[in-house]
């Protein structure tokens, strides 16, 4: 059997999203076509796993041009694990929306598949400008998706989201232009080589801009201001898409550009990252306690989550980076399950909510427990007892904030599901969290191997 080519998971969602754009997404078979596309993309990405873990990860340069002229695409373990988790989250969300009484907009399946194409492209590209192109593709679909539902409330959320994220995109584009003017190349490997040969301090300004741009995507303090309003007012499906899949661009971008492309700049930024991380953790946990709307609580919990990732990046050494990857992956599934469990009720959704809430707070046996334990260990090993204390405090406060929802939310106490099948999707997500908690080896290995080859020119 010939090995899976790297362009497989890129070609599939692109072509089918373009086809889906001409079809009416409100029809059941079109929705199933979209679901099949994402499932096939997931399988293709999974088939790349053995190659990505080999000594020579799969890569190609578009049009067989020499490197520097053509765009290089590459799938190392970091790219693969992010692509797998994000595609799985998109798949779950699309299935959920379809079984929850049908899709109400003709473009919804096509846009979700476009979002998938953009995300896969972002994770596989090894070229700074191409990263921007795929990033914009994902953002454009997200802008259109944000208004899904089309009530004034949804549109208000969409408007905030679009304005803030366009600012983030502008910052990112400016950083890419500065990188090109400074290093004379856009290929990430060549930028690594430049940083090793030349004075890497010239990269500090683009690095700072990148931190701000990805900060807006990921939503940590002080770039979090859009998150509560958007997550509260967008529909639960859209909030799950934005918080579960799209926010992955932020953490992936920080790890890719920080740890891989500009490790010297990340080294200098460590104290800043620690402060920002600690501030986000405190801010998110305390405000999550003060909110009455459950979706706002979830939004602030996601700010805490982002803070944990930033704090993990701020730790010296590979342990912190690995913890950041594990936190991002587990957090992505947590948030999707939490947002999707809202609104439609039912026994399974209730169980899924409590499992995902336990995972967010870091209670065993869940995926969230292992990622937080990893961060805790890394913090103690590197001599940051304060950060370790903050992690524990954040866990306790998140647990309190998320379970206070039982006092207010009727659906958490009683009532059947509004739609058959919605509970099954959320339940499957929470099962994945528990399964990872009982058998954490894949998550731990993903975290460890994803950061193993970063920052070294290959």
């Amino acid at each position, binding site marked *: 059997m010939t090995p899976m080519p790297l*362009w497989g998971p*890129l*070609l599939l969602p*692109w*072509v089918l999203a*373009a086809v889906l*754009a*001409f079809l009416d997404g409100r029809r059941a078979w079109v929705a199933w076509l979209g679901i099949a596309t994402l499932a096939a993309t997931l399988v293709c990405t999974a088939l790349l796993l053995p190659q990505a873990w080999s000594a020579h990860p799969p890569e*190609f*340069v*578009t*049009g*067989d041009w020499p490197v520097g002229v*053509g*765009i290089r695409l590459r799938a190392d373990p970091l790219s693969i694990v992010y692509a797998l988790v994000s595609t799985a989250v998109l798949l779950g969300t699309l299935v959920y929306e379809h079984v929850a009484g049908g899709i109400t907009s003709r473009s919804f399946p096509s846009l979700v598949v476009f979002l998938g194409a953009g995300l896969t492209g972002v994770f596989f590209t090894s070229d700074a400008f191409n990263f921007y192109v795929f990033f914009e593709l994902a953002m*454009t679909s997200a802008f259109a998706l944000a208004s899904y539902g089309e009530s004034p409330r949804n549109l208000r959320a969409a408007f905030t989201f679009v304005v803030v994220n366009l600012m983030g995109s502008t910052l990112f584009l400016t950083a890419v232009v500065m990188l090109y003017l400074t290093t004379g190349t856009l290929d990430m490997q060549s930028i690594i080589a430049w940083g090793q040969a030349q004075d890497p301090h010239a990269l500090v300004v683009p690095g700072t801009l990148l931190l701000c741009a990805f900060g807006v995507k990921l939503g940590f303090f002080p770039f979090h201001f859009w998150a509560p309003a958007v997550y509260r007012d967008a529909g639960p499906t859209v909030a799950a898409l934005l918080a579960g899949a799209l926010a992955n661009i932020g953490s992936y971008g920080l790890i890719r550009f920080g740890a891989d492309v500009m490790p010297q700049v990340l080294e200098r930024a460590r104290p800043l990252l620690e402060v920002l991380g600690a501030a986000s953790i405190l801010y998110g946990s305390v405000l999550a306690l003060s909110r009455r709307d459950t979706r706002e609580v979830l939004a602030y919990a996601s700010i805490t989550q982002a803070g944990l990732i930033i704090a993990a990046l701020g730790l010296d050494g590979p342990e912190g980076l690995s913890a950041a990857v594990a936190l991002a992956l587990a957090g992505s599934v947590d948030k999707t399950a939490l947002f999707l469990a809202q609104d439609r009720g039912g026994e399974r959704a209730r169980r899924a909510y409590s499992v995902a809430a336990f995972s967010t707070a870091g209670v065993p046996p869940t995926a969230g427990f292992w990622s937080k334990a990893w961060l805790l260990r890394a913090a103690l090993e590197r001599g940051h007892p304060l950060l370790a204390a903050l992690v524990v405090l954040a866990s306790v406060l998140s647990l309190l904030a998320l379970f206070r929802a039982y006092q207010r939310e009727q659906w958490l106490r009683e009532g059947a599901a509004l739609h058959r099948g919605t509970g099954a999707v959320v339940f499957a997500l929470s099962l994945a969290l528990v399964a990872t908690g009982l058998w954490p080896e894949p998550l731990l290995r993903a975290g460890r191997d994803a950061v193993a080859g970063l920052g070294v020119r290959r």
Partner: protein
Amino acid sequence: MRSFVPPLSRMLVWPSLIIALALWLKGGTEVGGGFPAGALAGLVVLLQYVVTGREQARRYVAVRYAAPLAGVGLLLVVGTAFLPVLAGYTPVSLFPQPGQPGLGAGAFHLHTALVFEGGLMLIVFGLVVTVIDRFALSTSTEEESGP
């Protein structure tokens, strides 16, 4: 007194579109390409919307069918990027490849890069015009239902 702006804006349509076409055909290593071409064509349409209103601007066929045009552009882009894969080339291989004899005369060369850029132009044009049209639609309904 009649304003000179509406006739002037209409006169600008064809020259602007010709410049957009020139930008598309130049492309390659020079300034130009599908993106600025599509953006310029979109700006001309924006001018029509602002000066003459939605009804007048929608007299042009390309404006009425902007969204399908973006879809066609998308298919062109995806097609040129991925069809070479079926023949065993890497994605985004463009033909004729370096060293192969080209078709065309003078400064104009037939190349699949032109198809790719043309698709990009249609996507940009289609998206810009669709967004403008939606804004125009929502403001015109607000005015009708307003006091």
